[in-house]
């Protein structure tokens, strides 16, 4: 009897018997954290869209397009490389499509882990958590490659007369991108790319760390002894959120 009383007290919010929204404390707080995180990402996407909207657009023939600091680049012309030296219009957006597929698949395996948790199926929770971790690591590896390619660049662009380290340089040439200049377009283009995909990538990294912790806890039987797998569900919410943000980043950065 004494044990049951303790368990019941712990499962409440420390108040009355009714649980707000019929959800546990941890799950509800995860939802509100994600809401606040969504505000942060909204702020970043607003900044991106605002700067892009007020920048000169390129309305000419897409085939004649060249990179210039004078207008915003066409995304297909920037993201058109694939590992193995493949590069060109026929590879436009292929790599980012692969990244999207990887992240959506890891979201699916996460749902399957949560579903197995509801059935107390430890073996399958461990299996699907492992797949989710692999998906997360694969996505991070893709992003590392994409960043490296973006920074190293493919073409030399002369970006005119600019101030570099306090000196006036005429006919400044840049290969790839850094935080001040880039070969693709206005300086804000690369700055926003680094900040927004970097901020998202850091979220993915945090998610992978959390998934690894949950994976070991599940494998060691912590949740089986606890009697429920709600922790998988809560970390699952975070993981899906990361996927959700990517869906928006994909549209705004790579398609529009």
């Amino acid at each position, binding site marked *: 009897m004494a044990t049951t009383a*303790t*368990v019941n007290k*712990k499962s409440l919010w420390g108040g009355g018997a009714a649980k707000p*929204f019929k*959800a546990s404390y941890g799950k*509800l707080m995860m*939802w509100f954290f994600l*809401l606040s995180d*969504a*505000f942060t990402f*909204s702020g970043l996407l607003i900044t991106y*869209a*605002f700067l892009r*909207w*007020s*920048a*000169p657009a*390129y*309305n*000419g023939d*897409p085939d*004649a*397009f*060249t*990179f*210039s600091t*004078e*207008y915003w680049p066409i995304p297909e012309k920037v993201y058109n490389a694939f590992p193995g030296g493949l590069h060109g219009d026929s590879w436009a*957006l292929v790599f980012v*499509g692969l990244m*999207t597929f990887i992240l*959506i*698949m890891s*979201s*699916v395996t*996460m749902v*399957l882990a949560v579903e197995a948790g509801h*059935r*107390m*199926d430890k073996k*399958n929770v461990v299996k699907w958590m492992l797949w989710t971790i692999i998906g997360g690591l694969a996505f991070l590896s893709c992003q590392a490659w994409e960043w490296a390619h973006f920074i190293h660049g493919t*073409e030399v*662009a*002369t970006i*005119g007369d600019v101030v570099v380290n306090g000196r006036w340089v005429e006919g400044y040439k840049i*290969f790839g991108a850094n935080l001040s200049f880039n*070969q693709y377009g206005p300086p804000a283009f690369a700055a926003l790319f680094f900040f927004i995909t970097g901020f998202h990538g850091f979220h993915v990294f945090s998610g992978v760390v959390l998934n690894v912790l949950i994976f070991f806890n599940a494998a060691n039987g912590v949740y*089986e*002894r*606890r009697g429920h797998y709600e922790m998988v569900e809560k970390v*699952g919410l975070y993981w*899906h*959120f990361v*996927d*959700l943000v990517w*869906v*928006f980043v994909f*549209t705004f950065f790579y*398609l*529009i």
Partner: protein
Amino acid sequence: MEQATSNVVVQPADRKKILGIWKVALYMAAITAFEYVLAFNMPAGTLRSAIFIGLTIWKAFYIVSEFMHLGHEVKGLMYSVVLPMMFIMWLIVALVNLEGGAIKDAKGIVDVEAPAQTEHVEKGH
């Protein structure tokens, strides 16, 4: 509290539920594939951007409602998450479309019709 239990009952998997999960994944893959078709076969413009954003919100609905299970939670929880986001959407449209456009006009920024001539890009390396 966490006493060792050797009598954990593993319930059998519900095939219908698992098929449902894969079905949602298939829908999302189909929407993304359609976005690719548009990206390569439709000229860029306001209409295409509007379609992309609409499809994105559709995908977001699937993730939030099915994967994150919000569609099956209590209505109050659903609205406490969805309503603030709807106000954010309003803010995005206001800031990006109206303010961004106003600043573009005020600064006298005009779109470019032809590739830049003052700069050149060398192939190679």
